[in-house]
């Protein structure tokens, strides 16, 4: 049985109010549920309304229509102060915190819990240190933000959201501008926090690869098809991804969980290869050079046949023509010449 959703939105219209009674709707009629204990990834093209949706769910801007319930209560009935105990955010906004230490920034997350002057109690101090440790940056505790890398800063902001002790954490593109190591670290971190601390974590990202690996649930948002939600594997296998970027030049490969450019294939080549990795890259080089690979070659070969035993043993036969290549570089040169 599914747990009660942390955030539940019905018939949600999002967008901006423009002037008097004017509206710029971006998405209409969204039905979404965000569950605790799960990492939910919001994917979609630029302009599909990802940031607008996150801002609306975080309470930064009012919905144009429909309802949002947080922890079972309608969002408009929750005071800003109470909301700061329910939702912690990590944004892409410009900050001016270079002159604060990592500890001081994470301690800002305690503000909803501290008194008028923000003085930290012993318990607050422990929560801040635990948040830093949970994000694997305890060694940077007393370093200035200015001296940290982009990945470390992002972890500090996540630690700030953790120190806020909210059941819901919403992050707007937390892995943008990060290198692949930091991207994987941060996604793994968020996934384990969701599971271990039973928090509902929602993030938007363009990093489909990591979202498919670590996202428990996906929200796919597109202008044309609206919102499709579900457990990652269900969405991959039911073709939802082809509706994410409805664009002729792009298609989703469910085997590898990635988008590929649709190639206009001029020739078809039969391919015989017993190694899966090798096969993948053979298809890749053929596609890039305008060939389609036929993997179910029959016995009677009328077309060209490519046999690959190893990256250094590639054989091309077409009728009487027999050529051997010792590397993919030689194959690529041959394919290009043959195209001309």
């Amino acid at each position: 049985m599914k747990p009660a959703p942390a955030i539940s939105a019905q018939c949600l219209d999002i967008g901006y109010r423009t002037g008097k009674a004017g509206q710029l709707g971006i998405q209409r009629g969204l039905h979404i549920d965000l569950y605790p204990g799960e990492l939910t990834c919001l994917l979609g093209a630029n302009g599909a309304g990802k940031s607008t949706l996150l801002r609306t769910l975080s309470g930064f801007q009012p919905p144009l229509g429909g309802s949002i319930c947080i922890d079972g209560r309608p969002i408009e009935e929750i005071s800003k102060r109470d909301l700061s105990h329910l939702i912690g955010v990590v944004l892409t906004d410009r900050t001016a915190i270079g002159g604060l230490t990592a500890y001081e920034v994470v301690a800002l997350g305690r503000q909803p819990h501290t008194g008028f002057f923000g003085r930290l109690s012993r318990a607050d101090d422990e929560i801040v240190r635990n948040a830093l440790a949970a994000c694997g940056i305890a060694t940077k505790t007393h370093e200035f933000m200015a001296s940290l890398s982009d990945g470390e800063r992002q972890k500090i902001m996540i630690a700030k959201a953790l120190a806020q002790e909210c059941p819901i954490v919403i992050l707007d593109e937390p892995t943008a501008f990060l290198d692949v190591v930091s991207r994987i670290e941060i996604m793994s971190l968020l996934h384990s926090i969701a599971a271990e601390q039973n928090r509902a974590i929602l993030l938007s990202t363009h990093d489909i690869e990591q979202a498919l690996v670590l996202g428990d649930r996906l929200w796919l948002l597109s202008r044309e098809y609206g919102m499709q939600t579900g457990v990652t594997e269900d969405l991959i296998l039911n073709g939802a991804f082809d509706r994410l970027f409805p664009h002729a030049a792009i298609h989703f490969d469910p085997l590898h969980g990635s988008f590929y450019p649709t190639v206009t294939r001029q020739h078809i080549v039969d391919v015989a290869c017993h190694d899966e990795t090798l096969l993948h890259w053979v298809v890749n080089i053929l596609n890039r050079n305008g060939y389609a690979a036929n993997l179910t070659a029959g016995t009677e070969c009328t077309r060209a046949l490519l046999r690959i035993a190893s990256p250094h043993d590639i054989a091309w036969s077409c009728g009487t023509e027999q050529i051997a290549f010792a590397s993919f570089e030689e194959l690529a040169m041959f394919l290009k010449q043959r195209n001309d």
Partner: protein
Amino acid sequence: MSNTPATYRHNSGLLIAILALLVAGLWVANLFVGSVSIPSQEVWRILWGGDASVESWQYIILESRLPQAVTALLAGAALAVAGLLLQTVFNNPLAGPSILGIDTGASLGVAVVMLASNMLNLANGMPGGIAAVGGAFVGATAIMAVILFFSTFVRDNLMLLIIGIMVGYLASSLISLLNFFATSQQVHAYTMWGLGNLGNVTLQQLPLFASLSLAGLFISVLLVKPLNAMLLGTRYAENLGIDIRTTRNLLLLSTGLLTAAVTAYCGPVAFIGLSVPHIARLLLRSSNHNSLLPVTMLCGAAVLLLCNLISTLPSDGIIPINAVTPIIGAPVIIYVIVNQRKINYFNG
């Protein structure tokens, strides 16, 4: 080890103590040193209520140097804190009451009151009078409100700064227009006031000036927690439960009071608001308002007391305060801009 919170707090405590001593020293120096040379034992005796051997010395110490030293102390702290508040709320280290046109707004208020009081035959219209203080407050808060309004949709900080400069120009052009309608006597009084003079505040005016400045400083102390949250930007602050509207209104009130009080009495004093918060951050090596606010107050007081001391050094007459403040302020700003990659609060 050098940066554990305990030693860190210890360091800021030590810095505050040193600065407090420095301010006290400079304040006393302002009583003992001036254009007229008075022997220190005479100064000492006069301060303790004794009679001076030269009668005018008593007047100089009690009616001129004492109020002027208190004024420099408070005005320095007030302008520096106004600058700090503006830099934090606009997320721009180059903001300040002069650059954003807020003290020009105060000047406009004073000019309007001067002209109107002449037409309506009101007393108190001259700079330093209650009506002028009111006019300065209205002018300063009006400009600040205009800039805050623009800041809700102009996201680029540099552009906002330029809007501030433009609004300042508009206010100064209105001032020139008003001068056109004023009597030559008024223009002269206004021009003298515009040069900036910490000696304008008389002993009788001091209580009002002090209460207004202290009220502005008091409000700023109440804002320490939201100011720290504001370092993250308004949306983060909102998510931390900060009431943005109340905070902005209090900031408006505080910067308005601080800038208006100083400007109405002493004229527009440049560079303190812009540069002192940088001196404070460089000394403290932190943007945390818990310690940055007191350090900024003390630095502001120290810098303006020092400037006042320098301005009274010549034996014949005084140098206008606005000729001295840039000598300390401008190099600080240039230093900070040139070294911004190495300075922590510029990077993050």
